[in-house]
């Protein structure tokens, strides 16, 4: 069987959906963060698939930027999680609820 563009796109859409559902249903901040990373990488897959099948380099270029940004985001995000854990000893977002109204 020949792999077509559609196969990649469906896989990427599936991964993206898993990420979105994970963000919405999971309660552990680290797991939510992993799901966001999954979303970003699903997007990367679709960029590369488009880029390959359209014979256009821009999509692959974009992926490098996305990876760099994701790394920066991970650095800040994990720092926030650590700061929170030091003060509250939990990363469960249901227990992080001082701000309300």
């Amino acid at each position: 069987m020949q792999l077509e563009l559609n196969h990649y796109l469906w896989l990427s859409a599936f991964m993206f959906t898993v990420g979105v559902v994970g963000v919405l249903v999971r309660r552990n901040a680290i797991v939510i963060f992993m799901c966001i990373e999954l979303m970003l990488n699903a997007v990367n897959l679709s960029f590369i698939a488009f880029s390959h099948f359209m014979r256009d380099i821009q999509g692959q270029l974009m992926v490098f930027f996305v990876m760099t940004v994701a790394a920066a985001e991970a650095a800040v995000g994990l720092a926030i999680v650590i700061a929170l854990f030091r003060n509250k000893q939990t990363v469960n977002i249901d227990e992080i609820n001082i701000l309300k109204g």
Partner: protein
Amino acid sequence: MPNDYLLSLPILAAAGWSVLLIILEAMLSRAALTRVFAMLGFALVGGLSVIGFPLQGLAFSEMLRIGGFQHFANIIFCLSGLLVVALSEKYLDDENVHYGEYYIVAFISVVGMMLLAAAANMAILFIGLEMMSIALYVLAGLMRRDVRSNEAAMKYFLLGAFASGLLLYGISLIYGATGELALHKIAIAIQTGSASMLFWIGFGLLITGFLFKISAVPFHQWTPDVYDGSPTPAAAFMSTGAKAAAFSALIVVVTNFSTLLQNSPTWSLVISSIALATMVVGNIAALAQENLKRMLAYSSVAHAGYMLVGIAAATPDGYSGIMFYTLVYTLMNIGAFGVVALLESKENLLLASDYAGLFKHRPMLAGAMAVFMLSLAGVPPLGGFIGKYKVFAAAVDAKLTWLALAGVLASAVSAYYYLRVVYFMFMRDPVGEAISAPATSSLAFALIAVAVVLLGVFPTEILRITDAALKFAQLPTQTGF
């Protein structure tokens, strides 16, 4: 090629200056010095934008689009950064978080905003957005020993990153549908062919990402929590600079696709409904708030709604109205948040009733706060009124009279909670001891208040500039020199 450098000089200068700030802080670790240099940097970059105002064109392989619109936006971002940095010192000292990094991160965030407004390519759009947002996550969590600040940063980070994911998927689908990442080339591609389903899904996701950033209903739930927990000056920065940046990027995107969007009744309906919902929900939720920071957060949601009316109108008048609005909003909202930051101490003095009798102790500060509140409410002689008038008038011209009418009603409702603060300051007798605040800052607020009044009384010059500034943003197919 030298022209490219000249065109993007403000952005290059800002990027270079942020490196300078990092080196300065690393070598000397003196927050006060970094603060002065950050303020100098904002003044320099703003000045460069003023000088370079007439320059326009596409720069660096059509990655950046520079024109009057971008220069005007740069001035707003620098103004926002300058005011926030100028007003932060006492607050940060009180909270024991006076780090030089605060100023550096704020500066980097402004670089991101400038890139966002100048984006002519989806890659720059994404990088600018992320540069701005990641810096803002850091600012939100600056008070790292304070659980409230941690929580605010966490919420902002998770929702912001989620929104970025949606936006990025949107970019990917648009790329797949058109084969291009440059905005003006995408516009050409969808004009020659017809816009496919893939493009519309991608466009929807892209706009959803932006709506998160400008905290439009139904993506606004994070706003009050984040503004409440963040350091108050940082909240002022998020609600003004970041909002102005997201709106400029939104304007750039919709003007590029204007021919497509003008022929789409669905788009107009969707964006008007979101504007309506944002105005209504923001104002009604703000009515119930006792805490001033949360009240201002919901009010910022409502103001995003008023600005969205200009997007819904989809005319140059509407966009020019939004630009004017963001300028006035930057002044009056930083003023209001600044007064709150000045008076609050360790989570006290945050309720409207805490301001009782402020006029007796500090007439100048109370007077300035009254100007900000009245301007936010949209009372006629002040800047806020002209901003609202411009966007609503554009909506009426675009045959969206019902939306403009709803906006007027919503701002009538908003007068209640703004005037309540004024009522407490002027009509009530003071309770407890006098609120202490340095006298110099009263003068700074008075100056901002005067600027808000002047924008209301003499708006013509600025409006002429915003109208002219939009010309270049309106020409999607124009190529560089």
